[in-house]
């Protein structure tokens, strides 16, 4: 792909402005703002439908290359206190995860172009700790311990330099010693460098800038750093021990330049110096915080209960928060632009990309129907690499993994960051995901390995089956996003008669969850057009926009597992993980919850006795009593498929809920019961044998005239357009929507 882009906000109301940032390797590109109706390029389906909207942004622009610098670090702005250092000591606790992966910076006050300053690094030669001294005239001296660090072990590391005698001391002390393992070292030697040359670089932990000008981020460290301390003279080993933890002891106050406590500001991007010098700094690219430190005992599982045991930051060479590109064009949303799903479509010769955005309704002018675009789930999946990274993907989907140009690009351009389904290059789980970067799987036309046989769509592009159906059936509707719901709460949804969810609304913050339940309780109507919804708890960062956190703890269908002790969010004080594991199973809020998954083909539903109940008559108007529902569809050839949900009173399905139809018995044996259902393993977990492998269509009334209808299947929306929209899946959906729009209460 030679053209990629993103925007600075996913949704805007008329009058607000969205900025667009574009990377283009061709001389020019043309922008057309389009209303996205259908993004499915499958010739067996409705086809790609988009409508060009005339805006001031629809122009040809000059192309320019913009690149992304991934990798996290701490930066402390330069200060005279740092510049005048001659003799010094530096110490920290480290837990390196890839000590063999080339040169990595623990600490650097270094200007690379002239090789000026000092750095404490992991040496690329042997993965041992080394001190770098630069004379400012292009020469650097490297003194290493020569003893390779082990991955995932804690070390006390320290180095000092005496400007008068040029004596260098380096300590490399594992906290745990193993017989026959030689990873400890103590070096006392003389350096050739007569002095430290000063420079105006910031003090950095975790990386360095190399080259000239702005330079390139280099020496990216993978692993934890805890309790870094910098002193303006040589400290004895005993003095270093006094500094390891707690406040700076009085005798050492004059020696300390900086004493950084990462256990403060865990929910912030700030990094605090607890010394009187106040050399505060910032994290860049959001390394993981709320991470267990060298001194974690296991008595506290929540960092709030023992913050001093969570003084570590885990740096990754592939972390990304903000791509930081310059703005290429902006669009102020016109008041005539109706609410909906749009994109800036970028084209240059045969190259193409789309930057999606949502136009929210003008407050006070809301329609009766809203489509709640599950942007939190899109961001959780942003730039996932399952087709290339995950050995299991072909086995789980029962077919060869399809890769389109976006997937091929993402495989090669890891600097575009990963999703919360990925692991970092050091195999730790990715727990943060940001939208301030091109999200190349959040695009119309994108094909996913998870999307089932047929159209093979997932998340964003699968949700265009819903926008396509709404538009084709002539409904007037607004579009709002998860992020709008999180920040604005009930206010942004309360006026709607009915809200449609996406095919896969999996990730919810507490604010989103509470607002949706309140909406239902006060008479709102929800159509759950998907499955595996309301599954994981997330948090949004309290300070910076556009980034979510998830902790994959305890259990659940997941691609990595949080480390014990790291189950609580760093962004907030909340326990992370499944909503089910916090007494809010999805059945409580949408009637059904995740029960099984399979990614090969889908199945139909058959009617159950409850579907003949008078309360459900409106749903099955025009449907025959023995009619099989949804034995067709673009997602796996059936309406019940991919991830599916079941009703369960014990998990919170309301006692008066009607279970209208089910796909029980129709699924292949690639559909397996989800792992959180398994207290113990037992044979017969597949769709031909296990009664938990089913999608249950459910309906129930809520207080004050509201109601909930659940399809309980990700594949449901893929069946809507079958036979030119003349089919029983479309019919049922229309029956429900038409009744839900009608304000007549279900129960007074």
């Amino acid at each position, binding site marked *: 792909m030679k053209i990629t882009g993103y925007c600075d906000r996913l949704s805007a109301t008329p009058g607000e402005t969205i900025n667009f940032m574009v990377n283009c390797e061709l001389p020019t590109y043309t922008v057309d703002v389009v209303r996205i109706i259908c993004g499915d390029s499958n010739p067996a389906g409705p086809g790609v439908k988009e409508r060009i909207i005339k805006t001031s942004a629809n122009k040809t622009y000059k192309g320019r290359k913009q690149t992304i610098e991934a990798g996290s670090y701490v930066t402390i702005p330069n200060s005279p206190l740092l510049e005048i250092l001659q003799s010094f000591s530096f110490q920290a606790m480290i837990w390196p995860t890839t000590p063999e992966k080339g040169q990595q910076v623990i600490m650097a006050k270094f200007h690379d172009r002239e090789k000026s300053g000092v750095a404490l690094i992991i040496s690329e030669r042997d993965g041992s700790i080394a001190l770098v001294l630069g004379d400012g005239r292009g020469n650097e001296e490297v003194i290493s311990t020569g003893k390779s660090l082990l991955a995932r072990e804690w070390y006390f590391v320290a180095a000092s330099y005496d400007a008068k005698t040029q004596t260098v001391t380096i300590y490399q002390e594992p906290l745990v010693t193993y017989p026959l393992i030689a990873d400890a070292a103590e070096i006392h030697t003389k350096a050739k460098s007569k002095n430290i040359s000063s420079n105006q670089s910031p003090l950095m932990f975790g990386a360095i800038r190399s080259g000239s000008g702005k330079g390139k981020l280099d020496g990216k460290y993978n692993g934890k750093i805890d309790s870094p301390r910098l002193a303006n003279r040589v400290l004895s080993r005993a003095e270093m021990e006094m500094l390891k933890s707690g406040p700076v002891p009085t005798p050492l106050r004059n020696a300390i330049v900086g004493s950084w406590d990462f256990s403060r500001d865990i929910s912030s991007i700030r990094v605090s110096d607890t010394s009187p010098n106040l050399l505060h700094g910032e994290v860049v690219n959001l390394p993981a915080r709320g991470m267990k430190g060298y001194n974690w005992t296991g008595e506290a599982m929540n960092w709030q209960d023992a913050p001093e045991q969570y003084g570590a930051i885990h740096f990754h060479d592939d972390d990304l928060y903000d791509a930081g590109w310059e703005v290429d064009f902006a669009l102020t949303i016109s008041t005539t632009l109706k609410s909906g799903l749009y994109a800036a479509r970028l084209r240059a010769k045969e190259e193409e990309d789309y930057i999606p955005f949502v136009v929210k309704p003008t407050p006070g002018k809301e329609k009766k129907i809203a489509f709640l675009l599950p942007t939190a789930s899109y961001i959780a999946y942003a730039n996932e690499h399952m087709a290339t990274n995950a*050995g299991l993907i*072909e086995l789980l989907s029962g*077919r060869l993994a*399809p890769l*389109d140009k976006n997937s091929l690009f993402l*495989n*090669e351009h890891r600097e575009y960051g990963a999703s919360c389904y990925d692991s970092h290059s050091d195999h730790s789980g990715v727990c943060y995901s940001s939208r301030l970067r091109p999200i190349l799987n959040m695009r119309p036309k994108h094909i996913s390995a998870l999307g089932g046989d047929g159209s093979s769509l997932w998340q964003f592009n699968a949700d265009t089956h819903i926008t396509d159906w709404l538009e084709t059936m002539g409904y007037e509707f607004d579009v709002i996003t998860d992020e709008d719901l999180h920040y604005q709460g009930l206010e942004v949804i309360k006026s709607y008669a009915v809200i449609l969810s996406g095919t896969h609304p999996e990730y919810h913050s507490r604010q989103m969850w509470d607002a949706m339940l309140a909406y239902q309780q006060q008479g709102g109507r929800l159509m759950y057009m998907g499955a595996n919804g309301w599954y994981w708890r997330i948090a949004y960062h309290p300070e910076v926009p556009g980034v979510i956190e998830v902790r994959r703890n305890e259990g659940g269908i997941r691609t990595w597992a949080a480390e014990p002790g790291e189950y609580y969010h760093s962004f907030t004080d909340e326990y992370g993980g499944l909503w089910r594991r916090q007494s809010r199973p999805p059945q409580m809020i949408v009637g059904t919850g995740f029960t099984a998954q399979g990614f090969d*083909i889908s199945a139909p539903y058959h009617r159950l006795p409850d579907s003949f109940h008078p309360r459900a008559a409106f749903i099955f108007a025009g449907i025959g009593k023995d009619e099989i529902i949804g034995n067709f569809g673009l997602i796996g050839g059936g309406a019940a498929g991919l991830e599916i949900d079941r009703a369960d009173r014990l998990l919170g399905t309301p006692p008066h809920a009607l279970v209208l139809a089910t796909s029980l018995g129709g699924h292949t044996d690639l559909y397996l019961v989800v792992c959180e259902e398994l207290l113990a393993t037992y044979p017969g977990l597949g769709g031909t044998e296990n009664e938990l492998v089913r999608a249950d269509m459910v309906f129930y009334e809520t207080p004050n005239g509201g109601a909930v209808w659940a399809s309980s299947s990700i594949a449901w929306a893929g069946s809507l357009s079958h036979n030119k929209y003349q089919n029983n899946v479309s019919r049922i959906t229309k029956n429900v929507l038409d009744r839900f729009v009608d304000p007549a209460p279900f129960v007074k």
Partner: protein
Amino acid sequence: MATIYKVGRQDRHVVNEFLQKPIGHHSPALQRVLNVFRGEPTQNKYVLICTKPHREWVLGQLSGEPGKPVKILKDQVFKRVEDAEREVFRRRWKKHTGSDLD
């Protein structure tokens, strides 16, 4: 997924079942063979490259290393996904059993 099952002559009877229906309900015996084939580690693993989405595919082979490009095998073009599935099955059968499928 590290399956220890060794595909061999004893599995010959599931081949036609696969060739007739590469994607869909499979017998346990066929699934056991597919667990081996589809569960292979990522290095050199076959994938489908959507050269013309929904219309045309070629095979690719994963490098197994994040960041390293997928090897695109341009020599065979498939107009149907099932044909690509059969071709890959043949290649894997040969690799695991040493015999050709005729």
